C-alpha cells in the first residue's frame, strides 16, 4: 500500500477547513484512505536516522496517508484534496478536456526497433502551467509514486517530463545501440554515451536500481526531438536540455512502456492531476503517436468511459433498497457522474479518466456502499443453513496431540522452513534431490528447504531451551512436504508426529514408551514382525541419524492376511552424538518420528 506525504497546511487550506488529527482520521476512514501519522519532515527523519541528522530539516507538519494500491489518482496532494472535497459535496468533479492545437498535433514517431526493448510511448502537453515551489515538488513526488507503484519501478512504464519550449517536435522514439546515443543527462554538465552513462550511474543511490531494465540490451530506447537532441533515455534519465524549472510554461509529458494500458493510466493520472495548474484548468493538448505500421493514435484519452449498471444489482449486492436518483447522488460523491435511466431502473455511469480502478459494475456498487457508509448499512445474517465438518486429518491429529499432551509431553510449534543443512547434513542424512522442496529466493539461509522431517525444528526448540529443567519432553504434530510428481502441484504434505526426550540419560525406553502409548490410543496392537497379524512392530535399524544399535524402524501392517500390506512408517532411537553436536545439544536425546496419515 503506497504512503503519500502531503503538506498538512496546504491540504487543509485546499479542503477549506482546519481539521484536528482525529477529525481528519475519521474523514479518511470513511472515504477509505488511512491517516498513518501526523508528523513533520524533521520528526520522520529523526525516527529513521536519529535526531542529530534530522537537525535543520523542516518542522512543517506533514500528513502520512496510506492509499489503496489501485487508486493512482490519490497519490498526490492534488488528487487527495480534490477527491475529499467531492466526497464531502464541497466541490464537483471537474470535466477533463482536451484542447486541440491550432497548428496541428505534436507528433511522436515510433521506430520499429523499439519493439525489441520498450515498444510503447504515449504523450501529452500541459499548456501555460504555473509552477510554484510547492506544486512543483508535488509534481515530482507524484511521478516518483507512480514509478514505484503502477510502473513497477519503471519496468512497465517510465515518465519523462520536459520544458516543451526547449525542444521541438516532431519527436522520434527510437532504439539505438548505447554507443550511438550521446547527451548531457539531467543536472550534469558532461556529455555521455549510453555505455558511459551506465557506468556513471552504476553507484547512484536513486537511479542505480533502474539500470538493469535496459543495461544488457543491445539497443537502448531514446526520444529525440526534431533537432536530434536527446529528450530522454527511458527508463533511466532525461536530457539536461529539456529540464523543467519553476519558470517552465509548457510541459511535454511522455510515458514509454512495455504495458500500454498502464502507460495510458499513468499519462492520464499526471495530466488530470496537474492540469489543475494550467491557465485553462483541467485541459491538456493531445499528442499524435505514429506507429511503425503507419497507425496513428491521439493521446491522452480523457473521455469518460460509460457503464450501465442496474439499480437492482447494486441493491442486491449491498442489501440496500436505493432509488436510482439516490444512487446518482451517492456516486457523485465518489467522483463518478451518473445519469438516471429511469424507465429501466438503470443508471448510466461516466467513469472519469482518473478512475482506472473501475473495471466492473461491482466497483460502482462498492462506491455506492462507501458513499452510503459501510457502517450505516443494516446488518443482516446469511440465511443459508449448512453443516459443520472438520477436515479428517486435522481432527485425527488433534486427538493424537491431546493424547501425547496427556501423556506428559509439551507441544512445540517450530517453523516449516529450515536450512538445507538442518534438514539433511545435521541429521547425518544425504540429500538425494528426490524428496525436499527447495526455495528459489529466500532472504536468509534459515529458509532454504521445506522440511521433510519434524526433527530439526523440535531439536532447535530444545537447543533454545537449554536452561529449562530436565527432562525436556517435547512433541509436534504437523506437516512435512515431499516432492511428488503424482500431484498437480508436484508436492504433497504429510502429517507427522515427532517427539524428543532430553535428559542426563538417553531415555530410550521413555521414547519407546510414548510410541507404545500412542499406538495403544490408536488401538493398534503390537504384533510380531514374523507373523501376518494387523498391527505395528519395530525392527532394529542402522539409521545414521541415531546412535549405532540404538534405533529401530516402526512398521505398520494393515489389512487382513493374506492380502495385508506392511509399510515402514517411521523410526525412533537415541540420537547420534554428531547430530546432537550439530544442533549444539550437550545432553543425550531420544527421538521418535512417524507418519500419522498411515493410520487414517
Amino acid at each position, binding site marked *: 500500500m503506497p504512503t503519500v506525504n502531503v503538506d498538512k497546511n496546504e491540504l487543509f487550506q485546499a479542503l477549506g477547513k482546519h481539521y484536528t488529527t482525529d477529525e481528519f482520521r475519521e474523514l479518511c476512514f470513511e472515504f477509505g484512505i488511512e491517516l498513518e501519522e501526523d508528523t513533520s519532515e524533521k520528526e520522520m527523519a529523526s525516527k529513521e536516522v536519529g535526531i542529530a541528522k534530522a537537525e535543520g530539516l523542516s518542522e512543517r507538519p506533514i500528513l502520512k496517508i496510506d492509499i489503496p494500491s489501485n487508486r493512482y489518482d490519490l497519490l498526490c496532494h492534488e488528487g487527495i484534496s480534490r477527491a475529499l472535497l467531492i466526497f464531502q459535496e464541497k466541490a464537483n468533479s471537474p470535466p477533463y478536456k482536451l484542447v486541440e492545437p491550432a497548428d496541428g498535433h505534436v507528433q511522436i514517431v515510433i521506430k520499429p526497433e523499439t519493439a525489441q526493448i520498450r515498444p510503447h510511448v504515449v504523450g501529452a502537453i500541459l499548456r501555460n502551467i504555473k509552477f510554484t515551489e510547492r506544486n512543483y515538488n508535488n509534481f515530482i513526488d507524484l511521478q516518483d509514486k507512480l514509478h514505484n507503484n503502477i510502473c513497477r519501478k519503471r519496468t512497465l512504464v517510465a515518465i519523462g517530463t520536459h520544458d516543451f519550449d526547449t525542444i521541438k517536435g516532431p519527436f522520434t522514439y527510437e532504439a539505438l545501440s548505447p554507443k550511438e546515443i550521446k547527451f548531457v543527462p539531467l543536472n550534469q554538465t558532461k556529455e555521455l554515451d549510453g555505455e558511459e552513462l551506465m557506468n556513471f550511474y552504476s553507484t547512484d543511490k536513486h537511479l542505480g536500481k533502474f539500470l538493469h531494465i535496459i543495461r544488457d540490451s543491445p539497443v537502448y530506447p531514446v526520444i529525440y526531438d526534431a533537432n536530434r537532441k536527446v529528450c530522454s533515455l527511458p527508463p533511466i534519465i532525461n536530457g539536461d536540455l529539456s529540464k523543467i524549472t519553476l519558470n517552465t510554461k509548457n510541459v511535454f509529458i511522455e510515458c514509454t512502456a512495455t504495458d500500454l494500458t498502464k502507460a495510458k493510466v499513468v499519462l492520464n493520472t499526471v495530466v488530470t492531476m496537474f492540469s489543475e495548474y494550467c491557465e485553462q484548468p483541467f485541459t491538456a493538448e493531445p499528442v499524435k503517436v505514429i506507429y511503425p505500421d503507419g497507425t496513428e493514435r491521439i493521446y491522452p484519452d480523457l473521455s469518460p468511459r460509460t457503464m450501465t449498471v442496474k439499480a437492482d444489482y447494486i441493491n442486491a449486492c449491498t442489501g440496500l433498497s436505493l432509488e436510482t436518483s439516490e444512487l446518482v447522488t451517492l456516486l457523485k460523491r465518489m467522483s463518478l457522474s451518473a445519469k438516471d435511466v429511469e424507465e429501466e431502473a438503470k443508471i448510466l455511469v461516466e467513469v472519469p479518466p482518473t478512475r482506472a480502478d473501475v473495471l466492473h459494475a461491482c466497483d460502482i456498487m462498492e462506491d455506492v456502499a462507501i458513499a452510503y457508509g459501510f457502517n450505516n448499512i443494516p446488518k443482516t445474517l446469511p440465511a443459508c443453513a449448512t453443516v459443520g465438518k472438520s477436515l479428517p486429518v486435522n481432527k485425527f491429529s488433534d486427538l493424537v496431540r491431546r493424547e501425547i499432551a496427556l501423556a506428559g509431553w509439551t507441544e512445540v510449534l517450530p517453523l516449516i522452513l529450515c536450512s538445507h543443512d538442518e534438514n539433511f547434513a545435521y541429521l547425518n542424512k544425504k540429500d538425494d534431490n528426490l524428496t525436499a522442496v527447495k526455495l528459489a529466493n529466500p532472504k536468509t539461509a534459515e529458509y532454504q528447504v521445506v522440511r521433510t522431517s519434524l526433527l530439526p525444528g523440535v531439536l532447535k526448540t530444545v537447543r533454545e531451551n537449554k536452561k529449562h529443567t530436565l527432562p525436556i519432553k517435547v512433541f509436534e504434530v504437523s506437516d512435512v512436504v515431499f516432492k511428488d510428481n503424482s500431484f498437480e502441484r508436484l*508436492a504433497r504434505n504429510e502429517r507427522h508426529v515427532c517427539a524428543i526426550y532430553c535428559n542426563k540419560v538417553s531415555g530410550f525406553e521413555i521414547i519407546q514408551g510414548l510410541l507404545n502409548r500412542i499406538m495403544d490410543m490408536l488401538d493398534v496392537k503390537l504384533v510380531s514382525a514374523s507373523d501376518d497379524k494387523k498391527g505395528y512392530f519395530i525392527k532394529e535399524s542402522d539409521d545414521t541419524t541415531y546412535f549405532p544399535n540404538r534405533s529401530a524402524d516402526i512398521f505398520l501392517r494393515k489389512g487382513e492376511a493374506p492380502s495385508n500390506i506392511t509399510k515402514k512408517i517411521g523410526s525412533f532411537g537415541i540420537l547420534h552424538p554428531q547430530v546432537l553436536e550439530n544442533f549444539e545439544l550437550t545432553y543425550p536425546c531420544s527421538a521418535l518420528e512417524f507418519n500419522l496419515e498411515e493410520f487414517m
Partner: protein
Amino acid sequence: MSTTEELQTLVLTILDAKGTIPNTKDLVASDNKEVDQLALLGALKSLSIADKEMVKYETIEEEIWVLTDEGNEIADKGSHEAKVFDAIPVGEEGIAISALREILGETAKIGQGKAFKNKWVIKRGDNLVRAVDSIIDQTRIDLEVIRSTGTHSDPKVLFELRKRKLCDKHKVISYSVSKGPKFSLTIEKQARDVTFEMLQSGEWKTANFKKYNFDALGIPPSGGHLHPLMKVREEFRQIFFEMGFEEMPTNKFVESSFWNFDSLFQPQQHPARDAHDTFFLKDPAICTQFPTEYLKRVKEVHSIGGYGSTGYGYDWKIEEAQKLILRTHTTAVSSFMLYNLAQQKEFKPVKYFSIDRVFRNETVDATHLAEFHQVEGVIADKGLTLGDLIGFMNTFFNKMGVKNLRFKPAYNPYTEPSMEIFSYHQGLGKWVEMGNSGMFRPEMLEPMGLDPEVRVIAWGLGLERPTMIKYGINNIRELLGHKVNLTTIQNNPICLF
C-alpha cells in the same frame, strides 16, 4: 543438641514451676549445655501457633561483644607483647632477636612493636632487653572483661580491640516466654494428613489435625501442555463449527501461482507476486497441469476482460501462472474449493473455513515472520449481501469477545467491496485492525463457472495477533518457531473467548 520435643518439655516445665522465663539465654538444657536459640524458636513457634496457644513469647534483641579466636587466645595466654616481655630474661643482656623468634615464632614479630610502644623493652645491639621490671597486660585484662560480661565500660577500648580484630559486636536474639491461654504440661501430637491407617483404625475421629496452611501453593502437576497458538486455534475452530462451517483441505503448502494469484484475479504485475514477497520454488519450479478451459477463461478475464469487466488489459503469460510457490494465503485453497463447487451439477450454499500456515518472503522482525497462520472463512450462496457480510462479521467477532466493530473501505484485487475490520482496543485507546473481508469479484467467480447470482463473502485474519494480544506476547518469535520458551508454553492459561 536437644530435640524440639526436649526443648518444649524444658520450657513447659520451667513455666509450670516459675510462671515465666524472663530471658531464654539463661536456659540450661538437660545435658547442661547452653540452649541453641534458633532451635528454641522452632519449639516456641510450634507451642504458640494459632490453634495451640500453649505459650506466648517475645523476642529480645541484645548486642554483645564476642572475642574472636585470636582474642580468646590472648585472654587465655596473654597478648603478643606480654609474651615477648615474658620471654626476655631479667638482666642487662636480654635476648637476641633471632633467639626470640625461635621461641615465639610469629608472635615475636607482632609483639615486639607493641612492646616497644609500651616502653616495656628496648633494643641493645641485636638484643632486646627489659625496660621495666614488671608489666600489666591490659589487653588481656580488657579481653577477659569482655569475655565474661559481653561488653566493656570504655567504648574506646572496644573500638580499639575491634580494630585489632580481637573482638566483634554480635546481635544475640533470645526470648521471654510466658504461659499461653491453653497452657498445659503435655503436648498433644497433631496429625498432618488423613491416612489409610487412620481410616482403618478410626483414629481420624479423635485425632487433632494440624492446621493446614492455606496460604502455601500446592504441588505443581507434571502433565503435558498444548501450545498456546494451538489453544487459540482450537477456540476458532469451535466458533466455525458452531456456525456450520466445513474445514477446507489446506494441507498443501506448495501451490501454483495460478491458484494462488491468477484464479483470484490478481494481475501478474501485482507487487505481491514479486520475489520480495513470495517464496518461489527452485525444485520443483513449475507445474503444467491446470483445468484447461478454466485456465483459458482466467487468461481472458485478465487480459481482455469479460463478465461485464474491462479486465486489466495486459499480456497474460502462462509462464507466470505455472510458477510454483509456497502459498502466500489460504485463499488459494478457497479458490480451488469454489472452482470445485462450480463444477457440481446443482449449486448448494457452502460455508468453508481453514486455519493453517502461510508463507511470506518477509524480513523477520518482532511482528513479522516468514510463516504465520491465517484464519479464513468463506460463505457462498445466491443473493448474499454486503449487509450479510457486515452482520456476520459482527456475530463472528462477538463470539471472539470482540465488540465495537467498524468497517473501513480498502482495496484487495480479488474482493469488491473490500473492508478492513477495526475494533476499538481499550488498552491502546485506539481502533486497531482485526482482519480483512470482502465479496469476491465477479471476475474471480464467473470464470469458475459459478452462476452470477452466487455471491461469496470471505474474511481473513492472522492467528498470531489475537494470540499475542491474549497472552501479552510482544515478539512473534516468542510464540511461533523454535525460539519459544517452554516455560511460557507450559504456563499459558486456557483460551476461552
